[in-house]
């Protein structure tokens, strides 16, 4: 147990203590003894810049009918201020950060909510103080909620302009019937419009506590000084009065293909296909990450060769969405003009069938592994790159997922790839959506 060398004479009470948990691959994990806040530190002294992030383990996964979109709307509300940082005092959160040239924002997704700043390294305390303050002191006022709701509604409407985004939303809603990955993080429109302020406040009071959060610092800082700052500002916050409620809904097996068509105005046809895959901590995650690259990374990838080079599609993507709970592996196509949806889908089927029949060659496998491992090195060019992936891993399960990825990927064999394709890319486990542009009405 270490003592925070805090200016204890300046404040009342004893300084806050923290414990070192683990040091691994250049990252050190601590926790605050007073409230179980998890802390990750990664010093990188390349430039006088530091990145700070607080990740809360709450996302749209923790929402249900009536308050879908609560995580996201609450994240917007947390820019509305606290008694310390607010517009009336001339200390509005965004303005204060902007003044120091910070790059800052917050984002929400299925499993987590993240608040982050990248700023000159002598301003680390500002970021730490601000995040500690908004963890428990945010105004969640009804008049602010009403105004912010219409801002979010405009954000939602911008998304609705994009057929690809709507198709993707429908895919998740179709593939997940019971589990809350069913609904989009931005929420259903009428839930966002109708959600009372009290419900948002309840959400804040349930999930925004130090024992449900991780604070991450990456860049140009001194570890002892950063720990002292974090202990001083987050230490006084008590842990949650009640345990954080677990989310226990499990999606049952799909048992049969799901298909649908979306018709509205648009220019080019789209196809999206999805298969259920296991949670991020599952042993097959490394193989699925490699498969994602074999299918869609660069012009030499299987789908690019099978669909874009053959002029069936103008664009193709594949993504293994690996989350806290089982997610989806998706493939999406933008069709070339004049190409039928079924023809393009059939070509994807052929690419997959081939992967089921024949093991991938060593050279192709090595290329995919190299791409993943070098991407990890490029990430380290920027403190934000590192804080971003650590934060994402913490949201899904644990930061060591990120650190271990190169090792997991290196261990993936051609037989693993063949096995996961055969295991998960099953017709009964598949959801397929077509976007068909509606003809112009005369």
């Amino acid at each position: 147990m270490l003592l925070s060398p805090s200016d204890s004479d300046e404040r009342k009470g004893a300084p806050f203590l923290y414990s070192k948990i683990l040091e691994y691959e250049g990252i050190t994990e601590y926790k605050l003894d007073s409230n179980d806040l998890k802390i990750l530190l990664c010093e990188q002294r390349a430039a006088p810049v530091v990145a700070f992030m607080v990740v809360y383990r709450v996302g749209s996964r923790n929402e249900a009918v009536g308050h879908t979109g609560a995580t996201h709307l609450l994240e917007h509300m947390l820019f509305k201020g606290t008694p310390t940082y607010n517009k009336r005092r001339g200390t509005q959160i965004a303005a204060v950060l902007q003044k120091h040239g910070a790059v800052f924002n917050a984002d929400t997704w299925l499993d987590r909510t993240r608040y982050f700043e990248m700023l000159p390294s002598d301003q680390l305390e500002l970021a730490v103080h601000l995040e500690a303050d908004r963890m428990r002191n945010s105004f969640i006022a009804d008049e602010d909620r009403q105004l912010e709701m219409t801002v979010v509604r405009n954000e939602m409407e911008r998304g609705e302009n994009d057929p690809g985004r709507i198709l993707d939303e429908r895919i998740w809603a179709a593939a997940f019937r019971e589990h809350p990955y069913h609904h989009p993080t931005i929420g259903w429109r009428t839930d966002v419009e109708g959600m009372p302020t009290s419900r948002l406040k309840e959400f804040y009071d349930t999930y925004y506590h130090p024992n449900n959060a991780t604070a991450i610092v990456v860049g140009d800082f001194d570890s002892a000084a950063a720990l002292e700052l974090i202990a001083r500002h987050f230490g006084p916050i008590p842990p949650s009065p009640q345990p954080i409620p677990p989310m226990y809904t499990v999606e049952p097996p799909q048992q049969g293909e799901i298909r649908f068509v979306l018709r509205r105005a648009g220019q080019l046809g789209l196809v999206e296909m999805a298969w259920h895959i296991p949670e991020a901590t599952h042993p097959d995650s490394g193989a699925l990450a490699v498969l994602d690259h074999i299918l869609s990374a660069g012009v030499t990838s299987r789908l690019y060769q099978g669909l874009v080079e053959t002029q069936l599609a103008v664009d193709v993507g594949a993504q293994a969405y690996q989350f806290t709970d089982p997610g989806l592996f998706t493939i999406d196509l933008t069709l070339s003009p004049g190409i039928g949806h079924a023809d393009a889908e059939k070509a994807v089927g052929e690419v997959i069938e081939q992967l089921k029949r024949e093991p991938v060659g060593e050279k192709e496998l090595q290329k995919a592994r190299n791409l993943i491992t070098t991407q990890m090195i490029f990430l380290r060019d920027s403190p934000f790159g590192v804080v971003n992936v650590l934060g994402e891993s913490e949201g899904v399960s644990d930061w060591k997922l990120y650190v271990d990825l190169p090792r997991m990927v290196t261990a993936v064999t051609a037989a693993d790839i063949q096995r996961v394709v055969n295991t998960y890319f099953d017709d009964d486990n598949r959801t397929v959506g077509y976007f068909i542009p509606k003809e112009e009405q005369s």
Partner: protein
Amino acid sequence: MKTSSDLRFAARTRRHQLSNGLTLLVLENHANPTISLSGTFRAGEFFNPSGKDGLASLTASMLNKGTSRRTKIEIAEELESTGARISFSSNTFTVSVSGQSLSQDLPMLISTLAEELRGPSFPADELDKLKQRVIASIREDLDETRVRAYERMTQVIFPHGHPYHRPSGEHLIREIESIGVDDVRGFYETYYGPGSLIMVIAGDVDDHRVVDLIEKSFGDWKGPEPPLIDLPYTDLQTKPYRESIQMRDKANCDVVIGHASRLRRLNHDYLPAVIANRALGQSTISSRLGLILRDEMGLTYGINSSFSESGIADGPFTIGVTIAPENIDLAIDTTLQIVGDFIREGIREEELADEKSSIAGAFQVGLATNGGMANQISSIELYGLGIDYLDRFPDIVKAVTKEEVDEAIRKYIHPEVVTTIVAGTFE
């Protein structure tokens, strides 16, 4: 850690000029075993011959579609197997080159770049595939409210033939369809060469070694004389104008408000104008426009103003806002009122102090990566500002006065003659 005097960019950046005109700048940063490459040369859209809009862009995109020595796939195999990347894109005046690799792969990165720049084979089937993809992407843009509104605004405020006058999607598709391999090769032969090429390499490299590699791969490259760019200023509009573009199935509308700015990067009051814009509308969540339309009125997710294309030529001053159809008039009226107040009042002292400190901080944050440094150095070189500009920049920002900013506001922002374009689905 190095001593503070070593940290000056002027001391850390080495500038080399090859006899064929190529300018090379190298910044050593050994923090991470990677390198970032950023380059530009003058062969952008401005040089499109009449009737061939899109040719500069197609030519740049054809560079990685095969060379006299190797096919597209062979080159991609080599780059992808090491995680390296080279990409080309065309802008209004220049083509940009961007690359990254592990530092151990720098020789391969440079030789591949030279192979693509110096010996493209322009295969006809690759041009056909590229055209098909480009046309599809233009078709998708036809469906984007923001793109349609912005494009129409540039057509109203810039004369036909001006590089910022964007052709309509349909027109562009017709011209691209008419482009053949001979056009691409002709354009390449007329404009591609080392004369205007600026290449910046930042990262875990040794300066002498980079010079050797560049000399070996590019030293004997000969090309045409670099073209000159001489473009008159665009006159400010004389009266307001408004137009609507009706689209289908759009829940959200985009409004673009703008006029010709007459602001260029090298104007003496460029920085005061940038500060003025930051206070008015650069940030949706902390500038004047956003504080009122988003934070106080809840009307929009995004509202921004910018002098985004003020570079070699003078671009537009624009304000863009996304809005539900029923709020269009309220948003436009409120925006113009805020702009009017800004011109009357000028920048507030605290806004000026905040923006100056913000620029200084953002400058530091932006230079945190090899890519960020390479881009900054490349832009400094393009405008001939001298590398020490980066070291002097914090003081230059500090010296800007309220009078200079207020003068820039009155000179460059003119709500009385704006062109307003609304795109979306409305009654």
